[in-house]
Structures are given as structure tokens and as C-alpha cells.
């Protein structure tokens, strides 16, 4: 029988749920039959009435005890109560994207009769319980993946009530771990650096080559093909002119993820680390669709990196590299020189996705600029600190804070590092569009 979503979910959770701060899983249940609330209620009333009758000497009080006593006797366990119970959790899909549904099935095995299967669950972080369904000895929990990460799905405690409703036994099933991949931000634009590696691709380079984009004309030299003669220029200049085409090259792109901290926007509650990884996934997916090579470097408590690669499946490798980055938050400042050369190829376009909330990322950006890589900072805004209305000192402090942020961005732009902002909502294209006007320049080594 399918249980209605809201009421069954509330009952299974034992209260409201929070994706950000999930409830602690309860202690492991005992493997013995315990009294139900019903048994406790009926027996308490019967005993209290009998005791009062004997103490006060009022025989009619035994009538108050008789009713619950009869209900208890009629519901008393017979031979049908299960003696052996077991539960097995089956989660068919353990890898999915944010917003997708996860179905976890718990198959119960027991002998004897069960009058009521009462499922409870303590969901893990990052998932939200959407529905509970009990069908025979099978309990199905439907979750919705809310936050990317490698999470535990939770613990299911399922109460089996005996046929009389007087005893219950809890059986526990661990639902295991799930990998929730970030939903990549929508993006189609692929800004490129001014210098591209000498590899065939889809981007129009500034260098001349064998592409399709018109790049100019030049005088004829011995060996040029006749079909490339540019006749208008030839007739105008009186000598043979040859059409030149732009080369089409592939780009190397490295996404640098700032995992030094996770700042929560006071107004919207959005997490900068969540949005950073979504932006990183969006950028990686866009470049991979253009058949470019994409790598990832995550700086935080622990340095994680993946050398640039290409192909549709590479997005999953990139995402899995940073899936546990939430656990890396620490105070160690990584030395970018320690990143192996294959992870940061010479001339690779680096997207530094950062809330610019930690000074250590500035050191990393400086190191990158000195290596000669073209760098773009995609700023994930942290939101303004909350200021109490009427608090003049706080308002001045907020102005100073904003000016400090502006100065920080200005210093980066002055250093040749463009800064674009993406607030986690909407398309990434709007943020990246200004980079299309000119190629992203890196410092010549």
C-alpha cells in the first residue's frame, strides 16, 4: 500500500528534515521485542485503575481497569510473532546528479505474522526523503539528491509490530553511500587564450593554418595551390594573392578550485563551495564538448589534481576528483609549484573558481600568473555581511568591506587576471561573455 508522501515522510523522519544539518542516526536498536506505545498505554491505565480501586476501596474503579485489560488480552501475542527477522537494503543506482531521485528498497525477511510495518529513516546529509512506500515485506524510500558530494544515504530503522499491536521489534538496514555529482552550470561559451597549443581542435586561433576562418591574404609563393588564389585582391594589386585561413586548435583548460573555505551567503544561504563545484563542472563540460583537454586542480587542505584529458566520460573523472573536496577544508597552504607539470600544462587556460574570501588563494593566483598561464578568476560572491538597520558603525564597516573587495578585484585585473562573477543562479555564459572580446592573455615566460 502506498502511503501518502507528506504524512508518511514526517512519521518516518520523526520530525522535520534539514538537508544541511541532518539528524544524527539513532542508536542501534536492540534485537528484542519491546512493548509498543499501545501496550504501555493500556497496561498503565489498567494497573493504575486497579491500584486506585484497591487503595481507595472503590470497586467501580475495577471497571476502568477491565476495558484496557480485555483489549490487552485480545491483542496478546500468539504463536504468530516472528522469531527471526532480517533486512537487506538494495540501492540500484548509487551515482547520480543533483536533483535526481534515489530509490532505496529494504527487503524484510521474517517468519510469522506482522501486523504493521512502521518504517523510520535517518537520512544522510545531502539527500532529502521524498516518499515512503510499504508494499508487503518491502519498504521503498525515495530520496532526492540535494547537494553534491559523497554521502551516506542514511540508516533505516523499521519497526515490526506483532499482529496484536502490543510488541514491536526494530530491524536496522544501512543504506550505504551514494555519489551525488554536481549539476553542471549551463554554459556554452568557450573563451580561449591568445596562444593555443599546436593541436588540431575546434577553436579559431590567431595563427594561420588549415582552418575555415578567413585570416587574410598574402603574395603567392611557389607551391601554393591554385584554388586558394584570392581573385579580388589579385586583380586589385596586379599580382597573385593567396587566401590565408586561421588555424583551428584545441585548448588546454585547467579548472582551479578554491577549497580553502566554504562561505554561506547570509541572505540566500547558498554555499560558495557548492556553487564553485557546479561552475567547475559546467566549464569542464563545455570545453569537453568542444573536444578540448580539461584538467582540474583543487587547492585546500589537500591538493587534488587530474591531468587534462578529453572525451565525454572525462567529466565524471573530473567530478570524482573533487567529490570529496568538502572534507579538505584546512589551514595548510599548498605550494602550486608542487603541482606536477602534467596537471598544469604550459600555456593552459586556468579558470580559478573562488569566492576570494581567503588570502591564500591570492598567493596561488600570483604563482600561476608567474608561471605564464593565462588565468581567469570566476568569483563566486559570498554576499554582503548582514547589517542591523540603524547601526551606523556596521554600515561604515560594510562600505569598507565592499571597497576592500573592489580593491582586491582591481589588483587582480591590474595583474592581468580578468575577474568575472557568477552568483550560482542563471547561465554561466553571461559571466564568461566579456572574455570573448579578446583572447585571455598570459604572461610570456
Amino acid at each position: 500500500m502506498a502511503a501518502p508522501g507528506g504524512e508518511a515522510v514526517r512519521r518516518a523522519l520523526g520530525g522535520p528534515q534539514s538537508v544541511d544539518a541532518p539528524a544524527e542516526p539513532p542508536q542501534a536498536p536492540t534485537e528484542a521485542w519491546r512493548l509498543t506505545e499501545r501496550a504501555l498505554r493500556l497496561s498503565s491505565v489498567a494497573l493504575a485503575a486497579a491500584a486506585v480501586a484497591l487503595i481507595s476501596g472503590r470497586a467501580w474503579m475495577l471497571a476502568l481497569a477491565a476495558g484496557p485489560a480485555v483489549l490487552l488480552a485480545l491483542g496478546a501475542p500468539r504463536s504468530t510473532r516472528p522469531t527471526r527477522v532480517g533486512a537487506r537494503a538494495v540501492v540500484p543506482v548509487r551515482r547520480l546528479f543533483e536533483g535526481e531521485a534515489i530509490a532505496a528498497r529494504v527487503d524484510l525477511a521474517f517468519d510469522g505474522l506482522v501486523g504493521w510495518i512502521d518504517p523510520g529513516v535517518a537520512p544522510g546529509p545531502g539527500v532529502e526523503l521524498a516518499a515512503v512506500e510499504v508494499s508487503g515485506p518491502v519498504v521503498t524510500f525515495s530520496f532526492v539528491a540535494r547537494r553534491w558530494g559523497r554521502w551516506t544515504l542514511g540508516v533505516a530503522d523499521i519497526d515490526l509490530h506483532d499482529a496484536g499491536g502490543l510488541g514491536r521489534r526494530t530491524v536496522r538496514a544501512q543504506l550505504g553511500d551514494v555519489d551525488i555529482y554536481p549539476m553542471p552550470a549551463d554554459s556554452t561559451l568557450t573563451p580561449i587564450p591568445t596562444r593555443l597549443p599546436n593541436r588540431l581542435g575546434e577553436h579559431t586561433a590567431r595563427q594561420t593554418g588549415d582552418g575555415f576562418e578567413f585570416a587574410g591574404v598574402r603574395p603567392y609563393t611557389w607551391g601554393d595551390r591554385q584554388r586558394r588564389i584570392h581573385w579580388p585582391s589579385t586583380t586589385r594589386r596586379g599580382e597573385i594573392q593567396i587566401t590565408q585561413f586561421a588555424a583551428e586548435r584545441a585548448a588546454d583548460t585547467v579548472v582551479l578550485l578554491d577549497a580553502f573555505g566554504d562561505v554561506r551567503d547570509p541572505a540566500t544561504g547558498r554555499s560558495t563551495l557548492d556553487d564553485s563545484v557546479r561552475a567547475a563542472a559546467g566549464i569542464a563540460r563545455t570545453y569537453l564538448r568542444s573536444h578540448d583537454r580539461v584538467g582540474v586542480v583543487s587547492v585546500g587542505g589537500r591538493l587534488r589534481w587530474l591531468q587534462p584529458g578529453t572525451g565525454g566520460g572525462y567529466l565524471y573523472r573530473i567530478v570524482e576528483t573533487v567529490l570529496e573536496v568538502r572534507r579538505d577544508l584546512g589551514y595548510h597552504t599548498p605550494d602550486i609549484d608542487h603541482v606536477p607539470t602534467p596537471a598544469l600544462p604550459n600555456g593552459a587556460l586556468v579558470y580559478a573558481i573562488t569566492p576570494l574570501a581567503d588570502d591564500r588563494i591570492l598567493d596561488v593566483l600570483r604563482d600561476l600568473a608567474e608561471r605564464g598561464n593565462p588565468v581567469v578568476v570566476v568569483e563566486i560572491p559570498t554576499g554582503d555581511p548582514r547589517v542591523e538597520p540603524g547601526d551606523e558603525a556596521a554600515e561604515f564597516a560594510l562600505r569598507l568591506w565592499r571597497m576592500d573587495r573592489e580593491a582586491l578585484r582591481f589588483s587582480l585585473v591590474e595583474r592581468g587576471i580578468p575577474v568575472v562573477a557568477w552568483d550560482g543562479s542563471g547561465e554561466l555564459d553571461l559571466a564568461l561573455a566579456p572574455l570573448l572580446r579578446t583572447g585571455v592573455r598570459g604572461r610570456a615566460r
Partner: protein
Amino acid sequence: MSEHGSDTAHEHEHAQADNDAAPLPSSAALPPNMHAFLARMFPGRVNTLPNDAVLLLGVALALAAVDPTKLGSRGPVGWLFALAALVATIWAAPVVSRRPAAQSVRLTSQFARHRNTVFAVGCTIVAGFSDPPVWLTVIDAALLLAYLLAVDALAAGPVGVRQLRRGTAPLSALAAVAIVLLAAQAPVNSGAVWGRIIAALAVAAAATAAGAALWIRQTAGQSSRAGREEASTLPRHR
């Protein structure tokens, strides 16, 4: 371990229990025709009507327990006590339908979790230390039984709903209450101290006999079931 019993009757009963083995909304305690009627009369509130009815039942029980026939003679203290009982009733009488998972070991949390039980026990004790007229004792007993059955129907899952729909258990309990009330009115009270001791022994003997009978029935059933399982050739695992 098998999920289904080894004999046909067992399997049938199991399947029947399984169909009801899901949490139900509070309105599911009502018969379908009554539910349809209430849905027409009170659209939008039909799901909360059973809970409201239990609250009203609880208020009536509390008022009956404090013996309203003597409220006038008790003065302001009596009225204050009745008012306090009413306030406590409004908090404690509504059905607690949360899953019985231990949220906290603090006494207040436990008290809130078991407030239906505390309310019923409290009404019993308050009624026991008043001296109501006979007609009020009948009302007390009927209201207490109705309250317990209603709470069972809304909080004890399909077991409580089934118990109410089949009618055997409520009728049996009502019959037991009636018999005891009739017996209590019999003029056999001599006022001697021995009377209470004998009554206590009788209650204890009745409880022991009932417990022993149930225990024998359970152990006999278990041994016969074990014998059937050993003889069965059905697979024990799914």
C-alpha cells in the same frame, strides 16, 4: 527464515496483514461512507476531524473525571483545578502519532512523547479519588474506553483501525466494563479490612491466570509452528 508461513492459512493471514501494514492517514480510521460524508460536509478539514474528535473526547473525559456534580460545592479551588485539568487536557489529549523513536532521554521529552498515556492514567487517578454518582461512573468508564480505542485507531496503525472496524474487541471490553460495574453495585461491601485484601488477591489471581493462559497458548503455538517449519519442504529463505 521465510517471509511467509508454511501453511496456507498462515500465508493468507500474512498477506492480509501486509496489505494493512503501511502508515495510514488519520482519516483512514473512518469507514469509507462516513469519510465521504464528512468530506462533503467539511471539505478541507476531513483529515483533521478524527483528531479534533479525540480532543473533544479527551475534554469530556477530563470533565467527567473531575466530577462536575460537585464543582459548585468545592469553591474557587475546585474551579481552578477543573480549569487546570482542562488546559492540561488540551495539551495532552490530542493523539501523538509520531513514530516511537527515542529523540531524547530527558524527562520532559519522555513526558511529551507519552502524554496520551499520562492523560489517560491521570484521568483514571482523578476519577478514582472522587466519589461520583453511579451514572457518572458509567460515563467515566465509557469515555475512558472510547478514548483508548480512538487513540489506538489513530496512533497504533492498522492494528488499531482493524480492532475498531471488526468490533469484537470494543464490544468485549464494553461487556467487561458493564459486568464489573454491575458487580461493583452489588451490596457485598461489609466495610471490613479483609475485603480489600481478598479483592487484591482476586485481582492478582485473575491477572496470573490470564497471563498463564496466554503464555501457554504462545509457547504451545511456537512449538507447533517449529514442528511445522521442520516438516515443511518450502524454501526458508527468499
